[in-house]
């Protein structure tokens, strides 16, 4: 048995507030791992880091032998920010160059041309240095090159604005060239933008949450987040999104592949609903479901992404005894089907019944770990929940 999820020294701080500090945790395939801790212990923050909604400040997350996030390094971040600003400024400098083509002929253009060449060379070096090894960076470079060719051609054609060539055929390059130049300007804009976003490998990268989901980590939320205006079946179908393949073209042409897929997804959706016992409500709006049913629907939606690891955030909150019995059975069934489960729960009965291994959080730190029985006996855990000796006045 390998490890499915490996978290090493994970920290997350919001400004000065340290929400998580050096959490180390492991989940094996088909294991049910529990996380407990008092309110505000950082459990949900931990989940948000795992599903990449948050970018961890420090530490590593490895899921299925692929790193999900590496920490932010502040010095590099600053450098990238500065470069981005330089890029944007250069983009604006290029703007008057663009407009100068439409100025009267008497305007001296050679200086502007030289300035243009100078900026081009700086830009080339900067972009290449910044975005090494990135395929889309080369794509952008290509757009730049194209725009530069247009840029040069524009000088050659000596476009004269005093001629109104309206109602006479416009040569194609009269339209193509300004467009090319505009494309170059937009390219600049994009570069600036990309640099302010995460550039992989340059400064700490974070996989996007949707990619994490497609890799096989699905989650539910503490405050239920369903698509309330859609039917129950539609909710599950949306969960199938990452497992379907028909895109814009196939949809518009309604190819046989797309139709088959649509029929299949309906059946699969019903199967997932049957698994959580909501099949008879499949065609109701999600809005009309009772609280416990909404929780189960969220689980069904998460399951429909075919996860290897399921993150459950307080699934039994607000459930009565019978409902939580059902939930225990449901989670056990999920494990039987080969999915590992990481579960946050306050209900100790549920936790002791389900978990193979438990981690205890308090104030963002890991204070204890072990099998349910060991954790129950642990003095630190009892202190965290009931208040420790010295703190009690």
């Amino acid at each position, binding site marked *: 048995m390998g490890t499915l999820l490996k978290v090493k020294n994970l920290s997350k701080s919001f400004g000065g507030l340290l929400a998580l500090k050096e959490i180390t945790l492991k989940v094996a395939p088909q294991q049910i791992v529990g996380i407990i801790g008092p309110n505000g212990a950082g459990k949900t923050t931990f989940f948000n880091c795992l599903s990449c909604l948050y970018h961890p400040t420090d530490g590593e997350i490895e899921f299925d032998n692929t790193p999900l996030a590496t920490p932010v390094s502040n010095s590099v971040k600053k450098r990238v920010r500065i470069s981005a600003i330089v890029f944007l400024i250069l983009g604006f400098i290029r703007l008057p160059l663009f407009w100068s083509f439409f100025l009267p002929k008497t305007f001296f253009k050679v200086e502007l041309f030289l300035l243009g060449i100078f900026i081009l060379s700086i830009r080339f070096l900067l972009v290449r240095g910044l975005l090494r090894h990135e395929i889309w960076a080369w794509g952008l470079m290509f757009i730049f090159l194209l725009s530069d060719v247009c840029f040069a051609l524009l000088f050659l054609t000596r476009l004269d604005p005093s*001629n*109104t060539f309206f109602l006479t055929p416009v040569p194609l390059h009269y339209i193509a060239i300004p467009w090319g130049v505009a494309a170059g300007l937009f390219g600049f804009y994009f570069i600036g933008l990309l640099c302010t976003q995460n550039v992989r490998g340059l400064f700490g990268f974070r996989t996007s949450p949707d990619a994490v989901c497609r890799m096989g980590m699905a989650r539910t939320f503490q405050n239920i987040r369903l*698509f309330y205006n859609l*039917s129950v079946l539609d909710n599950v179908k949306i969960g199938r999104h990452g497992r379907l393949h028909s895109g814009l073209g196939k949809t*518009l042409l309604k190819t046989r592949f*797309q139709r088959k897929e649509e029929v299949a997804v309906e059946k699969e959706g019903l199967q997932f609903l049957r698994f959580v016992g909501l099949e008879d409500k499949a*065609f109701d*709006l999600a809005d009309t479901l009772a609280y416990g049913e909404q929780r189960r629907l969220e689980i069904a939606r998460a399951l429909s992404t075919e996860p290897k690891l399921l993150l459950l955030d307080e699934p039994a909150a607000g459930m009565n005894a019978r409902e939580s019995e059902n939930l225990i059975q449901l989670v056990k069934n999920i494990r039987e089907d080969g999915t590992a489960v990481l579960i946050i729960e306050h209900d100790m009965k549920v936790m002791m019944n389900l978990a193979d291994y438990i981690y205890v959080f308090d104030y963002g730190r890991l204070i204890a770990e072990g099998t349910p029985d060991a954790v129950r006996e642990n003095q630190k855990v009892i202190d965290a929940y009931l208040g420790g000796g010295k703190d009690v006045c």
Partner: protein
Amino acid sequence: MPLFHRNPRILFLAILFLAIILPWVPLGVSSNYLLRVLTTAVLYMILALGLNIVPGFTGLLDLGYVGFYGIGAYTSGLLAIHYDLSLWVILPLAAANGALWGVLLGAPTLRLTGDYFAIVTFGFSELVVLLIRNELWLTRGPMGLPGISAPSIFGYTLSQGWQYFYLALFLLLVVLVVVVRLENSRLGRAWFAIREDEIAAQCCGINLIRYKVMAFAASAAIGAMGGAFYAKWFRFIHPDMFKFWESILILCLIVFGGMGSISGTMLGALILIPLTEVLRTALPQSMFNARYLIYGLLLVIMMRLRPEGLIPFQLSRSRKAEQAKARLLGGEE
């Protein structure tokens, strides 16, 4: 009505049939005038269907739709004047140009949320008008663009009102097919998910930026196609035709009809656009501009009585679910 309820296709075909025979029904008023009003209504139905994708399906407020409409109209006009291309070449080219600008505008700005995005789109539409007004060498600016040739289909040049009406109807059908297919697909579901809850959508494996840009591009393409038809129909375009007010009007149609519901959107356009003409006769000449006031009043009343529009999204959705139920369970028996 239960027949229509169970099988909306019959209702749809009935309305289509009505629309097709309409030009030949002898009515009291001048038939040309009536057809003109109806063609306008159909044009606005197309535009509303296009806009509906962004605020209705994806839940992003788009105040710059008219920018794409203008881009489509000018693309169509310029192509017709300079290259004298056929209508079947112009329409897709205009749509493609609209989509291109949709992507260019959308890709960087769709990271913004809510009101900020709305402001950017508003700025874009103003920019388009300014550009059209000032780039004399290309668009002739405030002098407008006259002399756009009438569309010809298979060598037959359109001239009568009913021919344009049929052309508009055909385009509406095409757009309708596209929009309905999108709505009932993986794409449409992704858009709905983004509208309902962005975070949950992300955690279901939906790439937000990608699907938002797609929605924006699709909407822009349909808007530009509407513009292309408008230019070929009116045969004269002018920057003032693409003012901000148009965006608001189309948004009104959607809000009135029901955000996100296709039938509602079309119904909204079908009621509000001819209403302009009704008001033209009902109101005294000097007060004609008061029609905007009446629109406003109508919207306020709607917000009070039926805030989700004539045909709310939820209703159309639950109806669709019922059909799916009938189809699936019927198949099993």
